[in-house]
């Protein structure tokens, strides 16, 4: 299949590789020439604009940083929308807001172009291992068309609902995940304040009801004090800004998420935005005790 790809960051690069390895004909557009050159070495054609990319692709994937980036790639000057033929599909795998996803789906519908919001969970490791969890919003028929492609990127693809629903699921995912990181950090902090070996405490908890993916992965990083980024914390900070904005709009109280958001604000202020979100432990350490 002729496919397009936009967004060659830590997530996008391995995803591009999987699609090429599955035998598809890939083209990319990239803002940074060095990213385009790397994609070319991996076997992808390089297009000069998103419009050119869309014109030669049946399906275009994007995984960029913010909602504004997606809007720019899709409907900015020389955007994808200018190049897509009727029946083309834009699968956006970025994390944006449900509102942005719904707006883009609506604008594409007017052009006869199909849309899926399909944000992912699993991080760079999941992207490399093709074990991502993919949460899709859009029409079932569109998802059915791209399902084999998504299956080469992740081990679990769930159709959550209409356009925007994927982003709602992703927002829920971020809320549960980062709140769990904060809970791990607080547990590690409490154990350390008692003078205990946090590695042993974590190991004990992993055998019981508190066992979780976050206690395993992020708790592990806290124990080894490895704060180099798996996922850069500023991305989680960005996500919390989006989801608390949605909570305001809908009149939904999110008391725990609101508290975690404040800890993330503190993390940003302390200059750890480029570090791993396990740094929430360092925020607690700074706030008291030793």
């Amino acid at each position: 299949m002729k496919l397009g790809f936009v967004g060659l960051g830590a997530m996008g690069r391995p995803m591009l590789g999987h699609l090429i390895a599955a035998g598809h004909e890939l083209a990319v557009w990239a803002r940074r020439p060095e990213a385009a050159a790397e994609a070319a070495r991996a076997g992808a054609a390089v297009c000069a604009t998103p419009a050119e990319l869309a014109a030669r692709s049946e399906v275009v994937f994007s995984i960029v940083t913010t909602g504004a980036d997606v809007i720019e790639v899709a409907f900015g000057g020389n955007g994808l929308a200018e190049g897509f033929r009727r029946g083309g599909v834009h699968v956006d795998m970025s994390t944006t807001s449900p509102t942005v996803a719904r707006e883009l789906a609506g604008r594409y519908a007017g052009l006869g172009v199909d849309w899926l919001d399909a944000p992912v969970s699993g991080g760079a490791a999941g992207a490399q291992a093709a074990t991502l969890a993919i949460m899709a919003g859009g029409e079932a028929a569109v998802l059915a068309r791209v399902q084999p492609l998504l299956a080469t990127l992740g081990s679990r693809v769930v159709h959550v609902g209409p356009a925007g629903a994927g982003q709602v699921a992703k927002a829920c995912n971020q809320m549960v995940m980062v709140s769990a990181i904060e809970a791990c950090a607080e547990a590690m902090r409490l154990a350390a304040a008692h003078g205990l070996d946090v590695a042993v405490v974590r190991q004990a908890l992993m055998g019981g009801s508190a066992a979780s993916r976050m206690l395993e992965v992020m708790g592990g990083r806290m124990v080894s004090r490895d704060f180099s980024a798996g996922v850069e914390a500023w991305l989680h900070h960005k996500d919390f800004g989006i989801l608390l904005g949605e909570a305001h709009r809908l009149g939904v109280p999110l008391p725990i998420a609101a508290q975690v958001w404040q800890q993330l604000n503190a993390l940003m202020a302390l200059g750890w935005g480029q570090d791993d979100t396990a740094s929430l432990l360092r925020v607690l350490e700074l706030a008291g005790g030793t």
Partner: protein
Amino acid sequence: MEVGFIGLGLMGRPMALNLLKAGHKVHVWTRRQESMAPLLEAGAQGHASAAEVAALVEVTISMVADAPDVEQVALGAGGVAEGARPGLVHVDMSTIAPAAAQAVAARMAEKGIAMLDAPVSGGEVGAIAATLTIMVGGEQAAFDKVKPLFEAMGKSVTRIGDSGAGQVAKACNQILTGVGVAAVAEALNFATRSGVDAGRVREALLGGFAYSRVLENHGQRMLDRNFKPGFKAWMHQKDMRIVMEEAHRLGLALPAAAATAQMFNAMVGSGLGEDDSIGVLKLLERMSGGAGE
């Protein structure tokens, strides 16, 4: 002074009336024409647009709901900038984000119009009694010119600093009143559910370190179960959003304000948005297994 007033809601109406009472000549325009009636009866002159008002006065004042309204009144079609004479000072007394206030003021400055942000605290009661606290950001010269008008509407008038500084002070005010209302509601609910007369608790606390205006005024209204606004919960929710978005932008931890903002979200979501923000008491009662009527 010839002064224009735009936005005649719960706050704007009594504020404009106080300008009339102080002997100023007041020109009004508002989106809902029927809102002008009480002002016209009191001697104000009605107009067809903000631009028309601006063409006749030395100072225009806006008191509207949110940042897009402020921008529309100042810079939109038929807005103040379209009609302004040289030397006009435009004063926005609405509560919006500091960054938004600075952006509108900068665009007005390009057109040669000095702008002040001058949000208020004191609620409808303060607006009627002309006892508002007015927090002003902008140039000293513009502030000096408008000061007599501020004094006709409020009791405490302070120039905090440059453009946006008034809104920063108002955001601080909303943190204190928002968290304060929630704290008073929690304390009174705690007393009641512990089987103690909440009225007597309030009275006792008024003499100690827990004294606050909120405990005195809002606390009494909670005891009276008088949830009529006042200051509507959805407006407090909006103000807390401004605070929390600024905190996000600046990288500031505001845990108590964050918790309070979620309470206001819950009020709006459960249909209490039109109540006074003291209705947070009802929410706490419901969360604690009570009726919360």
